[in-house]
Structure formats: C-alpha cells, structure tokens
C-alpha cells in the first residue's frame, strides 16, 4: 500500500492507483474531459491538473500514479488558476452556441466550466475552426468547431469497432478529427453505429435530429404511427434523469399518445415475427445444405459492415429484415388494410436505441409495401427531448397499454435488446419447432453476458447446433475472418455492432459498462415477468400468419419480410 495525503487527509491506496482514482476514493471530484472510465488514459485535455508538494509542474491526475508520501492538493488556488486557464484555452477553440446545441445540459465541457465558475470574459479571443458542419450522414452530425480533441471517438471507432472512420488530421494547432481526404461521413465506411456520439463529451458529434419531421407530419394531420423497440423501455428513462435500468414501458406509451401519435405499437411484436422468419430460415438452411453459418441481420450497422468489408460473404446474412423494417412493411399493408387506410395516409415512425436505423429506413430497397416502409426513425435521446418539449410530467404520468393488434410481444422479443438475445429467442422457438417438445428451461445462460465472443451448442433431438454471439465490430471481424478462412464450424451466429447489443446502442443516453450491467439485468427481468416468453406462442403472431402472411418463408412473407444485400466495398477506396 502507498501512503498519501489528499487535501490534508491521509489515506493509503494500492500501488499503481492514479491520483484521480485515489481522489475518487476520498470523495474528491477532480474534473476530467478526455478521461472515460471504459477507455485508455489519454491525458490530453489537461483539465485534471493537481498540485503535488515538491513538484514545480502540475501533473495530470488521470495518468499520474501515486507514490509513497505524496502530498496532493486537488483544489489549491494554484490548481484552480491553472484549470481556469486551461479551460479558457479550450473555450478559445470551441464555438459557444450552447443554447442551440444538442448537448445543451448534458455537455461535459459545460458542466466542468460551470464547476470551475468560469464567470469572467475569456482572455483569449475565440479562434473557431473554419470548417463546415457535416450533416451528410442520416445518423450522425459532425461539427468540428466544437471538438476539444479528446480522442474518445477515435478510440471507440478504432478499438471497439475496429474501423477507424475518423482520425486526427494534421497536428498541433491545425489538428482536426475527420474522415479521410475531405470526405463527407456519408461517403465513408462509417456504419452509423453512433458509438462516437456516445463518448463525445461535447456537441462535436451528435445524433442527426429528425424530431422536426415528426412534428411536421403531426401538424399535417397524417396518421402518425409509432413502433417502440425492445430496449427503448429499458433505456429511455435514463435520458430523463432516472437510474440505469429503470423500466417505464407504460409511461412511454402514454407519453407517445399525449404527443399525438395515432397508434403506439410494440416492436416486440415484429421481433417475434423476425424469429418466426429467421428461425425457419435457419431450419431450412440446416436441412437444405445452404450457406452456413447463418448470421443475424437485425443490426443495420453490422449489415453495412458486412456489405463493405465482406461483400463476398453476404450470403451468410439471414435474408430476414430487421424487426423495424418488418414492422414497416406490415403497417403499410396489413394494418392499412385492416384500418381501411390508404398507405399514403400513414406516416410510420419508429423509436430506436440506434442511430444506424436512420440509415436502414432510407435504404432504397426498403419499400416492399410500395412506399418507404418506415418514414422516420427517432432515437431514444430524441424521444426523451420530445417528452420534455411536450411538458409531460414523466414521473407522475400513468401507465398506458400498447395498441392492438401489434401491442403484444413475447419475452423472447424483449431480450432482442441485449447481446445474445436474438440467439436465445431463436433457440427457444427453433427447439420447440424441431423437437415438438416443450422447452423446460427457457434461460440459455451460455449465450448471455458481455463476453466479446460467446459460444454454445444446443441439442435439437440428436442434431447439435453450434452457435456463437459477437458484439462490437472488432469481435465481429474475428468471426468474419474465420468464415473467410473457411474454418468456422458454427451453424448460427448473432452479431450486434454495439457493445452490449441494442441497450448499448448509439441512440441511448451515454453508457458505461457499469450502466450496461444495470440495463442488462432490467431486460432479462422484463423477460422473466412476461406471460408469453416464446415468439411462436404470441397469439397475434399466429393471427397475422392466418389472416395475412400465410406461413413463414411463404410467398407473401418472402416479399414483405425478407430483403437482399449489396456490395459496398467501394466505400473503402
């Protein structure tokens, strides 16, 4: 143990502890900007400087390990003076249009500046970078006039997703974080996962906001129908200030009605539909000797990744659409028919934990209903803002039920939101379809958890099916390399681009692994509490097949619920 003194109080901490960590143990909050608890230590923003007795220079707390007898002052007048100066320098290169910034109120720079009591006029003139805002991507907006060069986005894009779409250009004063060669984000291999949005401490990288479009549709009096993804009920409350893992399904449904949506549907229903199609596709592939392993296609970021980096292997992707897109085509066909509405009168909106869904709904082939199947995608963050804008007292609002016939989903659909969930849901159905036996234990513990790549095998009456789950594209790449090399003996693989699956999606409130644990616990708790826990037991699923679709993989299902993929390797040039 190392003995140190922090702000006059003695303590001892294990060797290797940084000053920042030691201070936290002593309930002292040292401000940070580039530091992120799930990332490597960078020490580039310098805001965490502290005073160490006997040292002339002020070391940064985040990357300085404690040493025996160290006497640290975390907030001496000298430290505060230095921090204020550093803040002034950062602000001299940061456009301060805070009131019209998407991060207003959740900006880390704002909160550090506020804590530092930056109340005087900046001594340095503002030298904002002369760069245009890049709104080319349907998912992500880049405004480099606000970038503080912390490097978090580059790290997540490189170390978690393994694609490095953005990196630092030039050096020193001229440094910028950009896609290469002046490209707009839309012209790059960016998969729209939004993990960079998750870690950006300021408003330099933000979600492409589509709320205005929703208001226009409501104002125009169109029938605005909304579907809500499985993980939204788990993560939305967090964006409104609740603890991670607070489930508020009924409140969200009520709020959506108050905002003016014509019908509020549950994407859990179409997740069940996805399982019916994808599960049957897997059986067909297993029996028919077709391309194996089959890989899930629910995640639009993963699909774009595969199309870009492994266009020769898209045949491994399940042809089943994602739940969002299945719902989109069902709403503008089956639902329109049932309600006797012309599909053109319907505006189909979805609320998702995901920024890539905004890209997916605009894919040109996603119009099997004869119209763009899903018109507008909102993220959890955008919906939270709409709820605030609408002045809804979320704390006290009562619960409300989803509209039928698409308001019921099984527990299997619910867990789509966590990594391994789609796999578990599929196994529950596939097992019962193949064996004709009732599954005793619905919990496939092997496929759960946050391990980067997880494996399991399931005995389907003599046939052993080997499955794998990967989350985070860097892990997906490892699996993909195995497939390319021809030494992959899995039958079925679930891949989600975001760490943790959809509950870790780029459209949610910023996450850490600790918060993800809470969200994961909540999602499996929800599954346990639902009366129906297997997709094929959902009565409305049976109904839609009887009344409209026919059978899984049938002609109509094939037209409306399945899709194809394209080669996007050009994006790498």
């Amino acid at each position, binding site marked *: 143990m190392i003995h140190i003194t922090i702000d006059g109080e003695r303590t001892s901490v294990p060797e290797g502890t940084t000053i920042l960590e030691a201070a936290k143990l002593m309930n002292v909050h040292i401000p940070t900007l580039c530091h992120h608890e799930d990332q490597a230590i960078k020490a580039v923003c310098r805001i965490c400087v502290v005073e160490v007795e006997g040292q002339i220079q002020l070391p940064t707390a985040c990357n300085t390990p404690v040493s025996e007898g160290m006497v640290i002052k975390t907030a001496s007048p000298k430290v505060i003076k230095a921090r204020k100066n550093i803040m002034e320098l950062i602000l001299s290169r940061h456009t301060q249009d805070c009131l019209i910034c998407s991060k207003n109120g959740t900006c880390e720079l704002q909160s550090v500046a506020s804590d530092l009591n930056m109340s005087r006029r900046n001594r340095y003139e503002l030298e904002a970078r002369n760069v245009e805002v890049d709104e080319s991507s349907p998912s992500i907006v880049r405004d480099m006039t606000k970038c503080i060069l912390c490097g978090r986005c580059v790290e997540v894009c490189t170390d978690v997703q393994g694609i490095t779409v953005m990196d630092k250009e030039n050096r020193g004063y001229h440094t910028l974080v950009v896609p290469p060669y002046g490209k707009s984000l839309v012209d790059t291999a960016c998969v729209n996962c939004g993990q960079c949005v998750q870690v950006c401490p300021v408003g330099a990288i933000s979600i492409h906001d589509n709320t205005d479009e929703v208001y226009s549709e409501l104002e125009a009096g169109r029938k605005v129908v909304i579907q809500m993804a499985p993980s939204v009920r788990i993560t939305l409350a967090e964006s409104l200030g609740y603890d991670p893992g607070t489930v508020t399904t009924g409140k969200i449904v009520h709020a959506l009605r108050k905002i003016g949506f014509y019908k509020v549907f549950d994407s859990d229903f179409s997740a069940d539909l996805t399982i019916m199609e994808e599960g049957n596709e897997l059986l067909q592939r297993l029996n028919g000797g077709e391309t194996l392993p089959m890989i899930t296609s629910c995640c639009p970021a993963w699909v774009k990744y595969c199309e870009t980096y492994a266009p020769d292997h898209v045949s491994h992707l399940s042809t089943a659409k994602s739940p969002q897109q299945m719902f989109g085509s069902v709403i503008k066909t089956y639902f329109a028919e049932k309600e006797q509405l012309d599909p053109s009168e319907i505006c189909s909106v979805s609320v998702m934990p995901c920024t890539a869904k905004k890209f997916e709904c605009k894919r040109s082939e996603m119009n099997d209903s004869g119209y763009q199947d899903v018109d507008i995608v909102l993220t959890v963050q955008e919906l939270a803002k709409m709820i605030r804008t609408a002045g809804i007292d979320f704390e006290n609002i009562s619960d409300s039920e989803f509209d039928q016939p698409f308001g019921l989903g099984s527990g299997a659909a619910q867990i789509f939101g966590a990594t391994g969930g789609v796999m578990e849901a599929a196994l529950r159905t596939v097992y019962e379809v193949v064996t004709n036996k009732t599954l005793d234990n619905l919990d496939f513990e092997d496929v759960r958890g946050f391990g980067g790549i997880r494996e399991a095998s399931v005995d389907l009456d003599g046939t052993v099916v080997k499955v794998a789950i990967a989350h985070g594209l860097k892990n997906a790449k490892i699996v993909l390399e195995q497939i390319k090399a021809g030494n992959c003996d899995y039958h079925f693989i679930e891949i989600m681009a975001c760490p943790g699956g959809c509950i870790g999606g780029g459209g949610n409130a910023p996450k850490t692994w600790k918060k993800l644990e809470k969200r994961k616990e909540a999602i499996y708790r929800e599954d346990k509490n639902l009366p129906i826990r297997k997709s094929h037991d959902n009565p409305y699923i049976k109904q839609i097949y009887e009344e409209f679709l026919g059978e899984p993989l049938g002609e109509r299902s094939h037209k409306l619920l399945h899709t194809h993929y394209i080669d996007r390797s050009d994006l*790498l*040039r």
Partner: protein
Amino acid sequence: MMKEAFTNYKTPSSQLVKVAEIAAPYRDRPEMLMKVVTQVQKIVPAFTDSVAAVIAREMNISQTQVYSFVTFYAMLSVKPRGKYIVRMCKSAPCHVLGAKEIVREMESLLGIKMGETTEDRRFTLEYCPCLGICDISPAIMINDKTYGNLTAESVRSVIKRYIREDVE
C-alpha cells in the same frame, strides 16, 4: 476548396501496383507504416486516397489511419508535389539571418508562392520545421541535400542549377 485539392490528381494504376508490392509484406503489422510510407514516397508524388486505400488494404488497417499518419508529418504529403521539394527552414535563426529574402528570391525565380508546385511539377516550395543546421543558417533543403549560409545570389545559383540539370 479542400475537396478540390484532393481530387485533382489521380495516381496511375501502375504506381498503385508497386505500392501494393511495398505494403503487402507488412500485413497486420501497423507499426511498420513508417517504413512503408517512406518507401512509397519514393515512387509516388502524393499520398492520394487511392494510395492510402491500397496501403490500408494490404496492411489490414484503415484508410483513415494512413491518412492521419501522412498528414501528421511535414515530410509526407497528400497533395502532389514536384520532383524537387525545396524546404525553407522556418525557425528563428534562419529568420533572423534573412530567410524572408531567400523566400522572395526563390518565389520570383520559380514564379510560385510558398506551398505551391510549379506547373511542370519540377519544384515545390515549402516551409519546414528547424533543419538542425543553425550554424549555417539561413538554410534550405532540396530533397535530401542541404544548402546553407545562403544569400540572395547564392540561392539563385543553387535553384538555377536545379532548373538546368537533373540533380540526384
């Protein structure tokens, strides 16, 4: 502005083949990028998007990483440069001893401004950080050769020699 500068010049495919040959042995060895780019620099006038894409593909890294690396170093360029890159030291000693005059002389002789390349792609004028030869400042470097203790007259004769003949 920036985008135009990037798209004007295309690297011929014959050069891309050679770039691929240089990069291929270093697959999955990103730490060898410096070696690769210094070798590639000898055969291409610019690290264009296609050059970066080829290096990235062969080394199994991203095009952005190559781009980021190239833009970091003053000696590497994403824009095409001339056969002879004339680098004027931008540090204080050279400045004090008349770098401005040297620059004026070179600009008027070549008919281009600092940062530009002559139309015949023979010369590029650039500033660079300290050359480390302050004892003979003001100094310039033309490709790998340095010239010091320069005056308006002497820099004129140096440049004229490069105009007249191919200096290796």
